């Protein structure tokens, strides 16, 4: 498959870097005020990818289950941290991290293992060349869904406290009182993947498929993989967001079904 692959030498990367530097110079001269961020982000990207490249090379060479599992857990924890940092008003007491990480664990992990064991079936099932990229794509997308869903839920609960309590006062259960907000939160978590699927191949060529084609894979096979990945991502994001939104909305009420906004930390300006 890799016969047609053109090797990228280091000096070719240097040309790409030079282009970014040129862009930074232009934005600096034009006082557009982005050059610093741009250069920092580009440098970070190069370093991070270089490290992950090294880690993957080592991991592929060893290919032992416990190393793959360790890598997966590190990825999960980093994703959990990212979910937490994307909350405008995060739940206090470590719940933002716990709910985010927990729901990604039961969705992204489960779907990845299912796909490896049942659908793709490499031998052994944890072969890192398949397991790690697949998990990465699932975690990345699930993370977006979970973060958006939780952020929307806590933020709108904060803003609509009066409505929620007004419904409680009329004798509604906590679940009825927050039902509308929960639906909105679920929706905002799922919109990116739904839009992504709708636009796939028409507006945008998905990155993974493009990469596979560049790597010399026949387009038909690349398309099949991409379809599989899209479906898995939709399932993973859906379950992950649903779990996170359900757990978070439950946590917003106590055992007497009182709305407990003190469980959301006030961050930034008051709503």
């Amino acid at each position, binding site marked *: 498959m890799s016969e047609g692959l053109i090797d990228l030498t280091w000096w070719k990367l240097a040309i790409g870097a030079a282009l970014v530097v040129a862009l930074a110079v232009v934005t600096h001269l034009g006082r557009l005020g982005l050059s610093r961020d741009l250069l920092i982000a580009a440098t970070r990207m190069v370093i991070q990818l270089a490290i992950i490249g090294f880690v993957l090379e080592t991991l592929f060479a060893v290919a032992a289950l416990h190393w793959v599992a360790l890598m997966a857990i590190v990825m999960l924890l980093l994703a959990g941290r990212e979910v937490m940092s994307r909350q405008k008003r995060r739940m206090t007491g470590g719940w933002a991290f716990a709910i985010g990480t927990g729901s990604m664990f039961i969705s992204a992990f489960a779907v990845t293992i299912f796909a490896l064991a049942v659908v793709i079936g490499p031998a052994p099932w944890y072969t890192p060349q398949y397991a790690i990229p697949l998990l990465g794509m699932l975690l990345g997308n699930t993370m977006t869904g979970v973060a958006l869903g939780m952020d929307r839920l806590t933020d709108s609960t904060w803003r609509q406290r*009066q409505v929620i*309590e007004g*419904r409680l*006062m009329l*004798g509604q259960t906590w679940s009825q009182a927050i039902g509308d907000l929960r639906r909105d939160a679920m929706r905002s978590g799922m919109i990116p993947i739904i839009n992504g699927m709708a636009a796939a191949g028409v507006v945008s060529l998905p990155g993974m498929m493009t990469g596979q084609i560049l790597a010399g894979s026949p387009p038909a096979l690349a398309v099949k993989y991409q379809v599989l990945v899209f479906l898995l991502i939709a399932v993973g994001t859906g379950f992950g967001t649903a779990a996170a939104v359900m757990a978070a909305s439950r946590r917003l009420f106590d055992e007497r*079904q009182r*709305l407990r906004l003190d469980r959301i930390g006030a961050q930034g300006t008051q709503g």
Partner: protein
Amino acid sequence: MACHTEAGGDGLAAAQDTAASTPAPRRNRLVLGGISVGPLHDVSLEIEPGEIVCISGESGSGKTRLLRAIADLEPHRGEAAIGADRRAAVAAHCWRGWVMLVPAESSWWGDTVLEHFLDPVPGSLAAFGLDEEALDWEISRLSSGEKQRLAVLRALSHEPRALLLDEPTANLDPDLARAVEAWLRDYARRECMPVLWVAHDRGQIERVADRHFAIRGERLEEHPCRRD
């Protein structure tokens, strides 16, 4: 709502039959035991069926928080019961459906008034100076006075056993306020419903209260009422 299966209907009637055949109105006596919330400490009060108890106090004295605590909307110490039902023994949403709080500022989430209502009490719309078509009105077009009156009627349409009113006539002009007072007064008597009514207008308290308490520091202080 799940309340009927959990605590309403037969189960409740059976429980009360065993409780030495209490006369029907006693079922709805509202009892507060040692409630502490915000500045208030150890508030105990019994409101008989059909009785209106007014509470007054300066802003920040904890009137609203007391009502919220009774409706179990915020953490606090103390207990409450309506008739034979202890609050701790029933699901929170059932309790709030029985002991219903009407806040000073009502909230509305649907597009029309009707979505928030069960069947309104017959004749109540007219008594509150509202058209019969008021139920079809859009929420976004309601004035604050209309919202306030409709909020009380909305609460009554859910058939509570007791009512907690937080300044229910604050946005109404005096004539309308009097009409609403008088109707609520009759309604509470007729339905044997205990009412805890937060008010600050002395005239209103004179007109509606069977008993009147003013908040002094952390306690309630009973003031004499003209009527018994």
